[in-house]
């Protein structure tokens, strides 16, 4: 009975992927048919056309997510180190939690005006900056779980033994921080990759990422293309899961970083 329940549970987890894949391959899914009348690769042929909207949306999403995650990972590393050993650490941490807790779309509502007057709405750069503003505090929270007194002592030991700041960073801190950096990069990538409300508001619909495309296709009642965009959205996280499942999961106070 227990085994059967587990098998059913596994099937229920895998089912959404199979369902969306099938729908992305389908055409003419009239009620009450359980499966679409036509199943072929016609919808997927966009992969060969560089002018296809989905093809462009995939690379726009990828570009935005890579820019945001690289910026947050690099800048967050140094800023979080300063905050971690600052006497007002908890104040900064609480401040970091505010944008992290607020719905990104509410954040976008309150700072959209500044994007309008600076001409950043509807631009690639504007979406990157807006996403950076919500992802950066999250990056800080991830890194703050990582910095500890032991690490600080190792860093100081290296400096005491004659290592320069650069050598200490390159040969001591960086190797020890590999896991935290990877976790921050991939978690921020996922936040950016999954983001819809803020991207749509700041991008004013002109920056068509994959998530924006899903909603556009739903509005156009093109469920097959929406399913196809969903498959593309799920693809990079699944590759990440295949590489290292621990990079998919982050919770405050977790022990995965140390």
């Amino acid at each position, binding site marked *: 009975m*227990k085994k059967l329940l*587990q098998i059913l*549970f596994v099937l229920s*987890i895998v089912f959404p992927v199979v*369902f*969306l894949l099938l729908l992305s391959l389908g055409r003419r899914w009239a*009620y009450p048919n*359980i499966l679409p009348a036509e199943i072929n690769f016609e919808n997927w042929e966009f992969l060969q056309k560089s002018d296809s909207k989905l093809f462009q949306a995939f690379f726009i999403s990828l570009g935005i997510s890579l820019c945001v995650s690289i910026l947050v990972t690099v*800048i967050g590393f140094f*800023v979080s180190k300063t*905050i*971690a050993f*600052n006497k007002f*650490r*908890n104040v*900064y941490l609480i*401040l*970091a*939690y*505010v*944008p992290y*807790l*607020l*719905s*990104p*779309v*509410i*954040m976008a*509502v*309150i*700072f959209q*005006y*500044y994007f309008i007057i600076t001409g950043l709405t509807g631009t690639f750069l504007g979406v990157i900056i807006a996403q*950076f503003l919500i992802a950066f505090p999250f990056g*800080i929270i991830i890194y*703050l*779980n990582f910095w*500890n*007194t032991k690490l600080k002592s190792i860093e100081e030991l290296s400096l005491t033994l004659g290592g320069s700041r650069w050598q200490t960073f390159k040969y001591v801190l960086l190797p020890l921080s590999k896991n935290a950096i990877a976790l921050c990069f991939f978690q921020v990538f996922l936040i950016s990759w*999954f983001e*819809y*409300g803020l991207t749509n*508001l700041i991008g004013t619909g002109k920056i068509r990422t994959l*998530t924006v495309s*899903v*909603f556009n296709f739903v509005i156009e009642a093109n469920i097959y293309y*929406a*399913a196809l965009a*969903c498959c593309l*959205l*799920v693809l990079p*996280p*699944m590759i*990440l*899961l295949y590489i290292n499942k621990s990079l*998919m*999961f982050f*919770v*405050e106070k*977790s022990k995965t970083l140390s």
Partner: protein
Amino acid sequence: MKKISLIFFSAVVALPVCSGLVYASLYSLGIVGVLNSGVTLENWSIVIFGSPFWASIAFSLYVGIISISLSLLFALFIALSWRKALKNGMLSTVIYLPLCFPATVMAFFGFQMLSKSGFLSRLGFSAGIIDNLNSFPALVNDAYGIGIITTSVILVTPFFVILFTNLYQTEKISEYKELAITLGASKLELLHKVTLPILLKKSYATICLFVIFVMGSYEIPLLLGRQSPQMISVATLQKIQRFNLYDIPQGFAMAVLYVLIVVGFLLVLYLKNRNFFQAETHYK
């Protein structure tokens, strides 16, 4: 370098929220904005004393609490009953798969499954349970938020399963259980006096944060919710983006009030769970 880091942090984290709040407050008070003609408290009184804002907050809270409660029930059952499979078996990897699904994808999937012309309705028709499309119950765009709650539960449960599985190991619950068994505890006592208190106490702050996350969710209620009652993110954005420009100040007032509620909640959470935010990096 240290000063630059702290200034950068303040500029990126605190400044956008504060300046955004200032602009939204000024707009809602009629001080700025094209159609505003002078200082007024009318928009705030409509939001505070009217029912739509509080109905949205209440509905969001209801969805958040029900979704997280159900997720916790399922997650505790799975994490505690299938511990071995989650540690070593195929389940140990498969359980991470739902973390690959963005809310947008889950909202679309939920709609295709639960709507009147969705997959479940088609299965019901084929099995002879329903005789036409309209006989299928309204599970999306419904008054009770069944579609939103179901989709949120599917999205959140795996996270809690992984969290509880990890906590079970890091908190050495099996050792406490062995001790309790030695002292004569029954299976039921082990569950509600050892395992559950440790797991729930350790994850209390995370659970609270998740209620707030679900309350503020946007994509799922946008696709699976209905016009009334609306969840707070959808309601606020609709006020701002409506064709009636006179609704915009109310939208900003709603946004400001929601931010204040969340910040207030965060402060209460901080004061009650200082350990959760406690520095592990005290350094002199």
